[in-house]
């Protein structure tokens, strides 16, 4: 059975043109199987790229990629509830639920569950599979032991994020706006300033987290390149690349070569390090330790 590289939704606020060009290039050049489209973090960003979605989805499909539409992670307002309902009512598209509001409306049809829905154990896995979930992207803080236990019982395809800053939290409050002294309602879309998220340091200057509007991510970039074989042995065949503001086609090429056994994880990590301009890598969650830490060969590239 082959392993698939999938491209997660772009979590950051990139200008619509840039986003469209990005997906066109992914369609033409990137060795990815599935592409997740749509705004997951902030409903206020949603209108800008929405007009381009059909064109982008078509281009990706024509290039042989599977397209899945991701739903919002935090659904509070009436408008947000409506957005999710509209998405779930679309015919002939596959939707990834990132909140129970979406999952409940997708019951009984083939759908995906995103990493913002908590599936920590076999019990909840079974419930979601019973509701029709066939592709499940697991929460980032699960350890190797949990992944193995889930993989042993899974009917659905399980996916794990192997690259990109790790989503850690989401809030009703916008920290980008707050940092700039603005209210959420009149945020001026300041999150656009940071296409990889805004760095957040401790008081003594150590980089710690990254802010992306309502979302908080890790400062470090996940890199599970050394764990791919281990996960394949468990039966996990889907690996998510979470887009960062770098050459994602090349990132996908590098991981693909490792999956195909053409390239070694160590030398590939050095190339990824160049692509990420030295941003430290981490894989601690996999080893049931601090998520920020880098273990098992990745230490040299850690914090």
């Amino acid at each position, binding site marked *: 059975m082959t392993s698939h590289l999938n491209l997660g939704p772009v979590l950051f606020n990139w200008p619509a043109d840039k986003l469209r060009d990005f997906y066109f290039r992914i369609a033409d050049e990137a060795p990815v199987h599935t592409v997740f489209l749509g705004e997951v973090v902030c409903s206020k960003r949603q209108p800008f790229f929405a007009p381009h979605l059909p064109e982008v989805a078509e281009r990706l499909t024509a290039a042989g990629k599977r397209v899945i539409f991701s739903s919002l*992670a*935090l659904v*509070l*307002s009436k408008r*947000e*509830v409506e957005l*999710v*309902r509209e998405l779930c009512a679309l015919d002939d598209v596959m939707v990834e639920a990132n909140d*129970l*509001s*979406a*999952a*409940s409306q997708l019951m009984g049809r083939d759908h995906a569950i995103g990493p*913002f829905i*908590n599936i*920590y*154990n*076999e*019990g*909840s*896995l*079974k*419930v979601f599979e019973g509701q029709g979930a066939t592709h499940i992207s697991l*929460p980032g*803080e*699960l350890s190797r*032991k*949990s992944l193995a*236990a*889930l993989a042993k019982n899974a009917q659905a395809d399980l996916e794990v994020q192997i690259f990109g800053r*790790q989503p*850690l*939290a*989401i*809030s*009703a*409050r916008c920290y980008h706006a707050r*940092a*700039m002294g603005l*209210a*959420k*309602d009149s945020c001026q879309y300041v999150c656009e300033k940071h296409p990889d998220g*805004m*760095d*957040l340091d*401790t*008081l*003594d200057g*150590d980089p*710690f*987290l990254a*802010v992306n509007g309502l979302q*908080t991510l890790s400062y470090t970039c996940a890199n599970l390149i050394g764990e791919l074989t281990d996960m394949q042995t468990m039966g996990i065949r889907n690996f998510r690349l979470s887009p960062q503001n770098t050459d994602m086609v090349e990132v996908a090429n590098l991981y693909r070569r490792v999956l195909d056994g053409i390239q070694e994880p160590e030398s590939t990590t050095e190339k990824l390090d160049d692509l990420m301009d030295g941003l430290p890598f981490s894989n*601690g*969650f996999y080893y*049931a*330790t*601090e*998520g*920020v830490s880098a273990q098992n060969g990745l230490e040299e590239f850690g914090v």
Partner: protein
Amino acid sequence: MTTEKLELVCPAGTPAALRAAVDAGADTVYCGFRDATNARNFPGLNFSRDELAEGIEYAKQHGSKVLVALNTYPEAGNPEPWHQAVLDAADLGAHALIMADVGLLSYAADNRPDTRRHLSVQASASNPDAIGYYQKAFDVKRVVLPRVLTVPEIAALNKQIDVETEVFVFGGLCVMAEGRCSLSSYATGQSPNMNGVCSPASHVRYENKGNKLVSKLGDFTINQFSQSEAAGYPTLCKGRFVTEDKPSYLFEDPTSLNAAQFLPELMEAGVTALKIEGRQRGKAYIAQVVAAFRRAADAAARGETVPPLGLENITEGQRETTGAYNKRWQ
């Protein structure tokens, strides 16, 4: 749906705190077992099976109810402690089980269908569609709402759902959507979802540096205090950090929630129960806060204005906030 009288749901980390809460007028007390099955798995805290049995008995004698929180996410490959906790809590006579995990809700509905199920705030069900799902799938009778909704949003929500709602009115304030936060495990390896702890004491250090006191969580400085400042516990999201060269309490100021002034509006909004946070707090704190909110809830029920709570000594050194109940918070 309007309630005549708001139910007061109070925390207990120990049997002594449970008695203190009941004595101070709690309608309902919530507590957890002494393990990772609940989200306040703090050292030295919580109940053995025998202690829970005694606690339930004490509460019953005084006309109060006991809820048991089983609100962490069971570990893959190791569901037994959670399953056993469901069976034991139900068999010991808990009025309801507070759960967040879909798998555990399903287990409880199948195995102890007669014990009420409440949806924990850790499930962060913040909209009518999500809440409707839990009601239909697991016959959940009450949902504890995330601390991110404004009062008008709560009122609108209650019109669209057919389950009771319980809202936080006092104590610590999560600024992130509950149950969807891995900040703690990113820095310490231990999280609310998996281990029932946030910013665990085992990873906390205080260091004296010159005339500053530095609080650290794992390898990260969470805050620094000058001589004149009151030092706080380094809860990750209440720390001081630097963005764009500017230090600030970016996520949340070190405040604690006090929504007493909103009690009449919350009643009007159709809320069934008021929840006080703080199973990790001492029995003296519990006694004082519960008594104050008893007076406040009774006044609200009589249609009177809510009297001053007189809790200044407890919130001393800490600012108070009305949290998300006020739209400006976002």
